[in-house]
């Protein structure tokens, strides 16, 4: 009897709690209310560094070429065709009839101005490696330009697809980054109606958007984006009908939000790869980790399948090579595969002389339960890990100082589908390099300095084989991004973690 009463009471509570929020009202107002956790401090595309900044850029500005989100092929956008004149020269034809939000016409002047401005180090663009490859840009005709890189740069087209957007030359020359951050002007499907910097952004569909590019006209009229730093508040707002879309929802909460009738949840695999890095070059004072057998032992000690199944969920997959499987050069077949085998791990540790285990500082910044799960597996084979959980920047700082014997990090490659956006950073001899392997450095340099695909693949495969053999890294899994949104929204997630708001409409 008690049971029935309790069931009835909880059903009533559920009905009251999660009855359909007024999503109909938002649909009728044609406004999508989006929540982001991280602030875009300056919406000027060249002066912010987080993913949300890219999302904003894609709504307001356009790139010369774009990427098909499903096939990852390069497709025309503001440039209609292009060809490589030689190893360093790219010639592009531009689209005609495109206008900026303020009425300015788009032509070669804008391209020349934008690219020359951003590649000039005096202008202090934040992500220099996105722009420093450009030597100069010349105008060939009103709708034709020539881009010259300093050295042969095979990934040039990749870099022109996402991070480099075209600014209106007359407007930008007049107002500079300060005003562009407060009153952005671009060619994209949305124009900005109001900005409360770092707090709230209001965008409206622009009726003068050009035809034929990679982005269609926007379907939803208004988009309001608010920065809500606390995830539990975002979940509360989703439940109460205060916002319509959120992402990076933790897996457990995504599972539960799915059961709420007014919401939908999508889990999408991304290009972001998680990995455990080890000090294999004696940079830290931890002697044990320098021994390849110890690193291999750790690789065998962690049950990646269990972590993926229980903690990550969705379409995450275990990866063996230190890159994302679709990236050019990411050869899974040559990678050494470490299966979950705690007995073998213990034996390897004993062989290396650590039958009684050893102490280990473990640095991480991602969700604590992932770090704790990893530590649990280490404890089970006798190792004594101590967690140092800090912010991403703090861990990276400690990396560079060389005090991190073991660390759990991840890399999104800036969504660039080429291993040259990942491997040279971590195995190319920089302070991020804990392997200091001269051969690997040589192969990576060779792979990045030619456009011959066969040569590149061969070099990268050699590097991957060495890296996994000697367990410089233990590649863990691909990250899954969880999206939660109102069921009235027709939404599709993409593997490059870049929601394209102009593609979505109401159901």
């Amino acid at each position, binding site marked *: 009897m*008690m*049971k029935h009463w*309790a*069931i009835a009471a*909880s059903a009533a509570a559920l009905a009251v709690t999660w009855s359909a929020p007024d999503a109909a009202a938002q649909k009728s107002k044609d406004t999508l209310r989006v929540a982001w956790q991280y602030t875009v401090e300056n919406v000027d595309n060249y002066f912010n560094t987080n993913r949300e900044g890219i999302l904003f850029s894609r709504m307001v500005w356009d790139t010369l070429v774009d990427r098909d989100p499903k096939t990852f092929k390069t497709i025309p956008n503001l440039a209609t065709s292009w060809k490589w004149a030689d190893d360093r020269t790219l010639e592009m034809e531009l689209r005609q009839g495109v206008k900026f939000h303020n009425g300015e016409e788009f032509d070669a002047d804008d391209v020349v101005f934008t690219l020359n401005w951003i590649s000039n180090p005096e202008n202090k663009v934040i992500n220099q490696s996105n722009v420093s490859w450009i030597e100069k840009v010349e105008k060939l005709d009103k709708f034709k330009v020539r881009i010259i890189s300093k050295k042969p740069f095979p990934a040039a087209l990749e870099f022109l697809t996402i991070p480099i957007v075209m600014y209106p030359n007359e407007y930008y020359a007049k107002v500079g980054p300060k005003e562009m951050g407060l009153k952005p002007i671009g060619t994209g499907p949305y124009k900005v109606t109001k900005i409360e910097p770092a707090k709230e952004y209001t965008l409206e569909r622009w009726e003068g958007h050009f035809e034929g590019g990679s982005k269609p006209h926007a379907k939803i009229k208004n988009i309001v984006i608010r920065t809500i730093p606390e*995830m*539990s508040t975002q*979940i*509360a707002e989703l*439940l109460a009908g205060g916002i319509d879309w959120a992402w990076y929802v*933790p897996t*457990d*909460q995504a599972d*539960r939000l799915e059961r709420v009738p007014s919401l939908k949840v999508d889990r999408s695999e991304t290009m972001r790869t998680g990995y455990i890095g080890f000090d294999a070059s004696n940079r830290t004072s931890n002697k044990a980790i320098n021994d390849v057998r110890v690193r291999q032992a750790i690789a065998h000690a962690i*049950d990646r399948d*269990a*972590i993926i199944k*229980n*903690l990550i969920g969705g379409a995450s997959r275990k990866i063996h090579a230190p890159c994302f499987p679709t990236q050019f050069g990411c050869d899974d077949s040559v990678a050494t595969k470490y299966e979950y085998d705690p007995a073998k791990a213990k034996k390897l540790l004993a062989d290396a002389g650590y039958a009684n285990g050893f102490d280990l500082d473990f640095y991480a910044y991602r969700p*604590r*339960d992932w*770090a*704790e*799960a990893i*530590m*649990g597996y280490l404890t089970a084979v006798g190792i004594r890990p101590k*967690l*140092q*959980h*800090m*912010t991403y920047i*703090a861990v990276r*700082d400690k990396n560079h100082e060389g005090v991190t014997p073991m660390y759990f990090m991840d890399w999104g490659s800036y969504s660039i589908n080429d291993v040259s956006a990942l491997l040279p950073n971590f195995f190319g001899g920089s302070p991020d390099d804990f392997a200091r392997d001269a051969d690997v450095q040589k192969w990576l340099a060779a792979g990045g300095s030619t456009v011959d695909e066969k040569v590149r693949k061969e070099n990268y495969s050699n590097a991957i084989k060495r890296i996994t053999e000697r367990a410089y890294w233990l590649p863990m899994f691909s990250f899954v991004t969880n999206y939660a949104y109102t069921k009235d929204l027709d939404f599709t997630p993409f593997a490059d973690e870049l929601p394209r708001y102009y593609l979505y409409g109401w159901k």
Partner: protein
Amino acid sequence: MATTSTLFGPGRLSPEQMLAPSPTALLRRRIFGHRSLMFGALVLGLMLLMGLGAWFIAPHDPYAQSLATRRLPPIWHAWFWDDPKATWNHVLGTDKVGRDYLSRLIYGARISLLIGVATMLLSGIIGTTLGILAGYFGGRVDLVVTFLITTRLSMPVVMVALAVVALYGSSLEVVILVLGFLLWDRFAVVMRSVTMQARSLDYVTAAQAIGCSTPYILLREILPNILNSLVVVATVEMANAILLEAALSFLGLGVQPPLPSWGLMLSEAKEDMFFSPWMITLPGICLFLLVLSINLLGDGVRDVTAPENRN
């Protein structure tokens, strides 16, 4: 409570005083008659026992994790909602990596009490010393202490905690040191003002007049008079430290997992609070009871030892 100064030897009792109950008996009567004091002492005592005897009481190892049995619901889910996953083996369920929740709550008492006591002692020693010195000597000493207090107040706790954690990582020791070296301001302010008042009392000036040494005066005359306020501030700061640790854990600057601190458990459960409300309610209630009992104890001690200060 001591109505006669020790300076002139044990006080001579009048006939009325000799027939009345002894001061200690009176005190005992007052203590046991004070209901909130008893409640506070009882709860605090229970928590202390729980913390000390955790090894015996807790059903499981609070650190033992098992991904296969993660996020089990508490036992009442089996009663009301027929959930087969709820078992008596884990009465209050398990957390995100499969550790027994009840065991973590029990061990959590240790961490919270440790943080409270250690921080209170550290900040108490610093603040009381500074406060007494400033209040007694005045002049330049007072100016220096005022400078220190104002400097300390201008540096927000969160900011210092963030910087220290970025430099040294966060851990139990770091939390205690950071809080201990930051929370002394109220001790200093209160002790300073109380000392200033005590300094001008008759028997203190008399002691000075007959030439007693300064340390003697500080220890034997001033200290007993300000003990009352000291106890009150100590309990307030202990409660404060425990709550601040919870706030630091919320911001990610508190103790590190897998330590079972109630503040950390609260912070870990916040995203889940709509779907698994027990995970955030239970540690919250534990913290609440602990802090409440400390406050009641402090209030009670003050009431009982100096009823004229009752406010």
